[in-house]
């Protein structure tokens, strides 16, 4: 049967090997893949300012982005594509809580500059290559097929 020192070797050996592989894969991802897939060249000052607004107001406390965050309000990764900039300007600059179907969003009361920065941020997010996320709904009713 397995002895205690063999068990310890299993623990230490396994940990060190997988950790080294993990660091290697992470390094390749961060240096080779992320710059291309996220279009790092488009990270303008506006996009970065937008990210800062996203964080300092804890938007992730209600919404998800890249599928991460809370489940109280819509996923925003492709929001520009889905709603368009006009709609977003209305939501973001609203002075009273935006409340479609009565669920309220915090009235952040962003000024014009901030609204544009947030939109730039979302445009940049929307262009990241996410391996197909979010999935395209693929339901088609068979009843309506002639």
């Amino acid at each position, binding site marked *: 049967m397995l002895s205690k020192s063999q068990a310890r070797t299993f623990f230490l050996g396994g*940990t060190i090997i997988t950790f080294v592989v993990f660091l290697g894969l992470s390094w390749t991802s961060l240096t080779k893949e*992320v710059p291309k897939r996220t279009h*790092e060249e488009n990270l303008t000052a506006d996009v970065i300012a937008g990210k800062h607004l996203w964080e*300092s107001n804890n938007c992730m406390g209600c919404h998800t982005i890249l599928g991460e965050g809370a489940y109280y309000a819509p996923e925003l990764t492709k929001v520009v594509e889905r709603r368009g900039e006009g709609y977003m300007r209305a939501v973001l600059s609203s002075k009273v809580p935006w409340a479609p179907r009565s669920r309220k969003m915090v009235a952040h009361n962003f000024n014009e500059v901030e609204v544009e920065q947030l939109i730039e941020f979302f445009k940049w997010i929307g262009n990241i290559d996410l*391996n197909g996320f979010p999935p395209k709904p693929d339901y088609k009713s068979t009843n309506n097929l002639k």
Partner: protein
Amino acid sequence: MKYNSQKLAYWFFALSMLLLTLQIIYGFIMAFAHMGFDGLHEFIAFNTARAVHTNLLVVWILSGFMGAAYYIIPEEAEHELVNVKLAYVQLISLALVGVVAIIGYHFNYWEGRKFLEIPRPLDYLVVVNVLTFLGIIVTTLYKGKKRTTTSLVLTMGLVFAALLYLPGMIWFDNQTMDSFFRWWVVHLWVEGVWELIMGGILAFLLIKITGVDREVIEKWLYVIVGLTFISGILGTGHHYYYIGVGKTWLIVGGIFSALEPLAFLAMALFAVSMYRKGEKKHPNKIALSWTLGTAITSFVGAGLLGLAHTLPQVNMYTHGTLVTAMHGHLAFWGAYGMIVFAIISYTLPNLTGRKLYDSTTGLLAFWLSNIGMLGMTVAFGVAGVAQVYLERKMGMDFGDVQKEIEVHFFVLAICATMFATGIGFYIYEFIKYGQPSKEAIQN
């Protein structure tokens, strides 16, 4: 209890119970908001409630871990804690940082990164606090007579947990990088180093409760933490499927994260078989229930419900939906909530010298909270699966789907009431035990 300084543990446990109570209140605020009753919106908006709920969760669990360490390390090392006064300062500063952070969340003072909302200046205080704690633990261990595997695994878990907090403090302009390193904290904590802490506490409890030989228990402890790291480190990849890194992670993350349940399965089998094997039957039945309970519930909540959405083909649809919340609740509760309850239930009679084993209140607390939490998990699960099909498969609008699934949050609130009642009984019992006393010291 054998050492006077072990009394410290009591105050960390008390803080833990206080913060848990607050966490539950904010949970109800969110459940009501999901039902459409957001009357508190102006004062406690959803994002405030959520940041408070999840941060209190992390702090009460950490406070429980610290209490556990302050109890276990002296006993294992056979040495009083080295600096008890400093440890009290550490306790108070932990409580203060927690309270300041939580008040800040009500005034838009936060960092808005899920689970890591604590603003940067307070992060540094957290670091100082944890270093103080580790300093006391490691010095005690160093000066002690013995360095057992149990105490080493526990300490290793605590040290790594502190180190892994640091990647979460780096500032990135790129959201993908931000997310990438956020998981080094969140994932490598709960599916890595916290399992070492859990394993260490579990081994300690099993040694005390079942009387099985230490050598046998500690051998299996190594196997369990070995399985944890071998699967869990590369398993981080299950958070890298859809955040803007390459396809390699789909394969690596898929395979290794699918192996993660093995560590939890091993933990469950380990606890049950040690219990069967043990000849000594410790009279503290409540502690035994929580000990076996945590091993089994963590396998269900983390292992099985984690496996349910960890493959990339499934995660594509469930990623960032209420399905995640279903898993998050039972996993956190089963693994880390219940292990804290187990160590509290085991230590309280020893700390206070009052042997209230086998009380009805204690058993009610166990069953009500666990059945309540299972019910909550089902409610989140039904809501989540419905959301996945309606929104991601059929293409219904987010808000319309939320209207459809409101009803499940009524069920959630009912089960949460049951859960909270159980917790209420537990805390009532905790208070009834009274404070630790000198008379309780036995050699």
